[in-house]
């Protein structure tokens, strides 16, 4: 097990290194001279421009710029936002709880819908309930998140007036209001997760139900409820747990348009606003942070997989 973990780390570290080079290159590719953007009204003054270039090391070779940048990133310094005048690291930290709350709510909705539906459709394979669940999952996968969001605003906010159409209230300020502002986006994101989890749960359950130990359990006269719930489901859930962790990682970053539509001030809105403001250190920081979260969560997924699958522990 430790050998496997070590080998896995041996993959993660080069991946992160390449990632850092790509994120650094992204900034080099961005149009516009950073010094001109930063100088603002004083852009005509060559002394000011030279001073800014020297401060940002823009007059140094690329390799030196990269090394100094990665050195600062490793020390938790993600640079300074050009527009909001705040350290990028702090900016990301202020958005993290918002995105985390939304991701967690969406994930819970996704699991609560996806896993039971997957089990039901595997147990009742090729029956009407299987077709219905599969059809709904296909709808969920094909439905563009942002359109579902707009339609939900139309129905629940405009027509029924039940929920506020957009905005966000932090959980610690007013929990009830916070739930009201996040339940629609969480549902929009959750349905996508539910569709994916349902398909995987169904496939894993079908695999488990055809195993010999299930036949043995049935043969010795165990009730169907016990066979499905204890023997098949427990084994089927192993790959689903791994996949769920990865899905959670995607939720932590993939909410770009949903946050935009519901005006939720999380990672997605941060990166889009930064792109339009040409606030490149923020774009860089968010790309790096989301990728880092994703890499870490897939590592966690692997460890969970080993923790719950005893066969891998001895290997």
């Amino acid at each position: 097990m430790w050998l496997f973990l070590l080998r896995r780390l041996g993959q993660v570290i080069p991946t992160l290194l390449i990632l850092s080079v790509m994120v650094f290159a992204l900034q080099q590719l961005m149009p516009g001279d950073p010094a001109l953007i930063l100088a603002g009204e004083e852009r005509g003054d060559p002394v000011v421009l030279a001073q800014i270039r020297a401060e940002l090391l823009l007059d140094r070779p690329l390799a030196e710029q990269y090394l100094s940048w990665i050195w600062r990133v490793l020390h938790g310094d993600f640079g300074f936002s050009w527009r909001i005048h705040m350290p990028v690291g702090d900016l990301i930290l202020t958005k993290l709880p918002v995105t985390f709350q939304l991701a967690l709510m969406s994930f819970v909705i996704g699991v609560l819908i996806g896993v039971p539906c997957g089990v039901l459709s595997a147990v009742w394979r090729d029956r009407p309930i299987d077709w219905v669940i599969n059809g709904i999952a296909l709808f969920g996968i094909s439905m563009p998140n942002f359109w579902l969001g707009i339609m939900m605003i139309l129905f629940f906010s405009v027509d029924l007036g039940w929920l506020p159409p957009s905005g966000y209230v932090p959980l610690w300020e007013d929990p009830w209001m916070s739930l009201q502002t996040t339940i629609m986006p969480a549902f929009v994101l959750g349905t996508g997760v539910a569709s994916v989890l349902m398909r995987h749960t169904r496939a894993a359950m079908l695999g488990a139900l055809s195993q010999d130990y299930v036949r043995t359990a049935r043969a010795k006269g165990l009730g169907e409820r016990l066979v499905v719930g204890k023997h098949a489901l427990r084994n089927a859930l192993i790959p689903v747990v791994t996949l769920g962790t990865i899905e959670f990682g995607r939720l932590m970053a993939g909410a770009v348009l949903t946050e935009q539509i519901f005006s939720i001030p999380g990672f997605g809105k941060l990166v889009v606003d930064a792109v339009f403001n040409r606030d490149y250190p923020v774009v860089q920081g968010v790309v790096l942070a989301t990728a880092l979260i994703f890499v870490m969560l897939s590592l966690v997924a692997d460890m969970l997989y080993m923790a719950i699958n005893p066969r891998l522990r001895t290997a």
Partner: protein
Amino acid sequence: MSSTAGSTAIETGESPASRALRRFMAHKLAMFGLIIVVIFVVAAPLAPWLAPFDPLETSWSRLRKPPSLTHLFGTDENGRDVLSRVLYGARASLMAGTIAVGGAVLIGVPVGLVAGLGGKWVDIVISRIADAMLSIPFLILAIALAAFLGPALENAMIAIAISASPIFVRLTRGMALEARNTDWVEAARAMGNPPWRIGLVHVLPNIIPPLLVQATLAIAEAIIAEASLSFLGLGQQPPSPSWGSMLNSAQRFIEGAPWLAVFPGLAIFLVVLAFNLVGDGLRDALDPRSQKR
């Protein structure tokens, strides 16, 4: 075709391709998806003849009129006919979907073949690069690339193609590694075929079925990505119609003119659903292990 019932494909001497085609044709949902895809593919180039109005023609006398017999999908905030705009918008979406995925395949498959057949170190380097790209969320990578390239439909397509390519690298690499250890590749190598020939002639044809499935599903994803980029203003530029940018402006008039948001979204949903149905159908039809006849 029903005469083959009860006998296996080998006994009837049916080729894998015709067997897959027959199974695909028998797949009702997949055929339904294919019909929708064909309708859109035919309608998009014929938009100038099919559209009842000029998609760019504004009129102050018909601002935000609800659907009626003259304007089946209503009119938008500039008095333009929504049905005509949805029809023209199909061009941007389908083009972006197919060209972007075509680009991703053209990048991903050769690189994946090289990784799978090129030896240990080549494989490690390529795999780590693909891992790094895959660890950046798809849409965030596409947004960052599109922002760097500048807002335009062509640039959105390039951004989507690059973002989607590591999936094809990974798929091709995995299949190539698997094929490398088969007897026929071993035989080809023993006969003295150079590596590039083994890759192109012996490995590639065998991995086309899963590639086809993945590409079809990727088109669905690329269409959503194009709509997302256009929604953010990073794709097709106004006044040219695209479903994503139509949804963006529709959001401002959601209270008074909900039809503006309904129809472009419905169009995206239908096309994406259709491609997903075709992809699922292809997967079932092409899977040699499937027991279905």
